[in-house]
């Protein structure tokens, strides 16, 4: 019963949290997509660090990286409504000039994370080589989108 209570309250809190996110997302899509991309960056930092051997590999961490990428790849494209090309954003005007091209890049991102998620399984990739094999294609999609749809750097 105690466990059920905890599950229910966790669900409630999560639900409230999500409602809050939805409100914020509608109000400020730029801040929302930047928060999503910074979670991608943080996950890439952890994943890349493990791939380079700077951080010890751990399947739980590997799974977390892949799950973060997966969630971002599904959600990210929703936060580019018309008019959100203004203000403090690194998004290029091409996102709105060529929505099909942008959608194709997002599709590549989510296709790569879908495969990585499948490879990750219940316990995460068993070792760093399995992790590299799963994450390599995901990392490959970063620059193909940034080449055109993010202001240069």
């Amino acid at each position, binding site marked *: 019963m105690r466990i059920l209570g905890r599950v229910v309250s966790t669900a409630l809190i999560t639900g409230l949290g999500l409602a809050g996110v939805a409100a914020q997302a509608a109000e400020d899509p730029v801040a929302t997509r930047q928060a999503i991309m910074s979670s991608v960056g943080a996950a*890439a*930092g952890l994943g890349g660090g493990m791939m380079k051997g700077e951080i010890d590999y751990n399947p739980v961490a590997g799974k977390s990286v892949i799950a973060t990428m997966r969630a971002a790849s599904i959600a990210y494209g929703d936060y580019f409504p018309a008019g959100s090309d203004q203000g403090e954003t690194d998004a*290029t005007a091409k996102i709105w000039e060529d929505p099909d091209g942008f959608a194709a890049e997002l599709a590549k991102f989510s296709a790569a994370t879908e495969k990585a998620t499948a490879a990750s399984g219940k316990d995460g990739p068993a070792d760093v080589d399995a992790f590299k094999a799963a994450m390599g294609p995901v990392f490959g999609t*970063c*620059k193909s989108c*940034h*080449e055109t749809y993010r*202001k240069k*750097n």
Partner: protein
Amino acid sequence: MKKALIVLFVLAVVAAGTAWGLSAPTQISAQEAATLKEGDAEKGELVFWAGGCASCHAAKGAKREDLLKLGGGLRLETPFGVFVAPNISSSETDGIGSWSLVDFANAMTHGTSPSGENYYPAFPYTSYARMTEGDLGDLYAFMKSLPKVEGKAADHELGFPFNMRRGLGLWKRLFLDPAPVIASPVSDGEVDQAIWDRGRYLVEGPGHCGECHTERDIAGGLVLSRWLGGAPAPTGDGRIPDITPVEGGFGSWSAADIAYYLESGFTPDYDSVGGEMVHVQENMARLPASDRDAIAAYLKAIPAIAPSN
């Protein structure tokens, strides 16, 4: 800015009228021509990637083997007008297939065409002028081995007075100088001179990094005192970053970080390369690791340029 540019160019045109000789396109000397020799195509391929030829002369969005089809056509939209990259494939009629090695060297190091016209510095001969005869000979051999692409690219779209090529002879007198930009390493630590020299050659010569990473003055010449200190993007929006070892900026990248970025396209924070730098990074990834290390060693030992204003 635009007005001032126009005034300057009108002045340049007047000067060209009174001193026509000063604007004559220059060429390599007879002595230099005599020592040039066609080299090794295989070595030339590395020079080709180091020089980034395909980034402008292959079709937009080209990848893999399509990068070797140099039909031109890419449009560079700049404050001076639109430059269209020409066909430099081995086609005799539409590309450079009929060029001699001397023609090629004149184009690469003097910005002068076989018929004695000035090229616009959108073609970065101001950097290529620093290339060795050996690399030019190898590159020439490699370019001859590439596929012929039929069809000339469109003309540049430039208004008066920028459409007057002759006036560029004066521009070249001011800004075309094959001397090294940074004379010697600037660093508190120890620097391996041979590695740094190789890095300098790649960055200042074929890699032509300064063409985008250094700001330009009102006449379009590089401000060498702010070498690699970042600049407004020459095409499109955004800013090309400062890649000098400046505190609070690029200085926080280690040499290994720089080399890894050039190899993989990822920054130390695991942000990815973007924009036109994607082409550059993919070219650099084709070079031997020792060359990427040399570029990193050079970039760690040049004067730091603080952001302006």
